């Protein structure tokens, strides 16, 4: 059963230089208990699209131009994008938990870590001070903070980067959410600490039955975590597929290029990496063609004249490309 259905989401930003077309019509759905990985490079729109679901982008300069996001909240099915401010606040933090890349800037430096976790439970779950405190200590312990009761009164700066991310996770799961949205939560961490955090998230996900949207630029992290993956490029969904299929049979030239550009720690030194020539797309231009066409070795005339729709490859796998990578020829019109 799907708990989130996003259709035709488009987001733009007004800047001095002009309008930035950050997200240009993104659609996807998410089942309960499913983990969806969203990969893409900087500027691909992966963060902006997920942040705008909860209206976490600054408006203005940001503007949601179109779209709907139907979510099964604890109070019924709602469109996140058209909810009133108060109703939105009731969903945010309660039914949907967030973990951001940089815990130092998402935690309040003037509030103890314990109070920050307890705050959301007092607000959303109507817990009294005592009950919230008790539950907070349990949560701190659950996310792997040693001597949890003693750390309740500590401030964020007294924690290491990995520990702060554990605190963020505790806040995100405090009110028993159905959905956890994690925006590059391990990107700023060292690889051994990243391994600890990934292990924790996997355990919590299975234990609490969470649906997860995991935004990352790291194809390795997503390979180990996701059931299904969306690859974004230039504010559009380039490809969407079950995780094994995406890595084994990519059907979008961008996905194929990304996978070939990656060296692997478990394989011997190769001669040369395949690189994707050219530079990322110019988002000041309204999308009128495939955004990847200028860097694509398969591109032909049609790619420069229209935005490709998402062609279904098979059940659960689609690609926004006019070229059929499996058949090695352009698709018939």
């Amino acid at each position, binding site marked *: 059963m799907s708990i989130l259905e996003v259709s035709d989401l488009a987001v733009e930003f007004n800047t001095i230089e002009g309008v930035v077309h950050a997200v240009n019509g993104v659609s996807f759905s998410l089942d309960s208990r499913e983990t969806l990985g969203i990969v893409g490079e900087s500027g691909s729109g992966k963060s902006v699209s997920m942040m705008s679901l909860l209206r976490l982008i600054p408006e203005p300069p940001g503007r949601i131009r179109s779209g709907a996001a139907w979510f099964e909240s604890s109070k019924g099915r709602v469109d996140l994008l058209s909810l009133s401010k108060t109703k939105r606040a009731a969903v945010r933090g309660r039914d949907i938990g967030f973990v951001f890349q940089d815990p130092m800037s998402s935690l309040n430096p003037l509030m103890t870590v314990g109070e920050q976790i307890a705050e959301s439970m007092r607000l959303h779950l109507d817990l009294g001070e005592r009950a919230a405190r008790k539950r907070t200590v349990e949560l701190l312990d659950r996310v792997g903070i040693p001597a949890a009761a003693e750390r309740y009164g500590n401030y964020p700066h007294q924690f290491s980067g990995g520990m702060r991310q554990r605190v963020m996770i505790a806040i995100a799961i405090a009110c028993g959410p159905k959905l956890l949205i994690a925006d590059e939560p391990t990107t700023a961490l*060292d*690889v051994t600490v*990243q391994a600890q955090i990934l292990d924790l998230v996997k355990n919590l996900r299975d234990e609490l039955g969470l649906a997860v949207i995991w935004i990352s630029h790291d194809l390795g992290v997503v*390979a180990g975590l996701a059931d299904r993956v969306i690859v974004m490029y230039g504010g559009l969904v380039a490809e969407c597929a079950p995780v094994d299929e995406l890595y084994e049979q990519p059907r979008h030239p961008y996905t194929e290029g990304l996978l070939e*550009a990656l060296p692997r720690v478990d394989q011997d030194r190769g001669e040369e*990496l395949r690189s*994707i020539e050219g530079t990322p797309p110019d988002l000041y231009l309204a999308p009128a063609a495939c955004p990847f066409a200028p860097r694509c070795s398969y591109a032909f005339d049609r790619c420069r004249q229209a935005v490709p729709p998402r062609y279904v490859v098979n059940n659960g796998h689609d690609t926004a490309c006019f070229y059929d990578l499996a058949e090695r020829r352009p698709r018939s019109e």
Partner: protein
Amino acid sequence: MSNVSTADARPLVKVEGLKQYFPITRGVIFSRVVGAVKAVDGISFEISRGETLGLVGESGCGKSTTGRSILQLYRPTAGSVQFDGTELTALDRDDLGAIRPRIQMVFQDSYSSLNPRHSVGKIVAEPMVIDGGYARGEMNERVAELLELVGLNPKHRSRFPHEFSGGQRQRIGIARALALNPDFIVCDEPISALDVSIQAQVVNLLQRLQNELGLTYLFIAHDLSMVRHISTRVAVMYLGRVMELADNADLFNEPLHPYTQSLISAVPLPDPKAERERRPILLKGDLPSPSNPPRGCVFHTRCPLAQAVCSEEVPAYREVRPRHWAACHFVE
């Protein structure tokens, strides 16, 4: 220009017992030294001509400081750095200036390492201006040649850094490093800030330049996959010390030190099937502070194999197998 040949056995760079401490001070007017951050604490290695030594480790392990100390951007607290037989730590400012053209650096952050008010032409020409002895026409020609070499359009020389993308800015930094025909380049996380598709472009460029110009690299990075791809040999650092150093294939196929083992096991693989099989060795806790490193083996607080001896005695850094060094009491 140097020749890549195995016949020349003398290493191009030889580091011995290098220490780089930074003082911790208290008080503003009567400031006094109350301790030291031991960023690099006694490391030794050699780099042969034409090879790439990968230097990996997590943040705060001292890998960037090592690069800067070798270049004498910091004056080392102790130890020796020899470049092509010359002891760099003994040189004064002028003598260092004379040898600098042969040792260059590429920085991680191309925003802060390129002057935003200078055109690309001026940035790339600057080493030649400082070194002196170049005629204007000669310099212009060389700038065009360098831009072409790193895959930029020489016609864009009058543009400014902000007009280029991250990957292109990194190419500008590389062109500048090449201006004086160096033998040795310290690459300090040159691709960490770049997107995956652009990383491959820059790494391929660095490898091509190495082959064409016979360059020697110290490649500092935290991305183990990329280090495996680009390095001839690899050194793993932890809290200011080298834990293990070996030829590329030996280090990744048969890591001996428990820290290296856990580091490699922690890297996610872009392959869902391999990911389901991978069992990372999870380390306990966090990195200790380099201002107060653990006694004995610096890794013992997180080591899955630690015994009593590890908290008492510093393990010797020894050649456990031919060309394979490690610092651990339990490595046979």
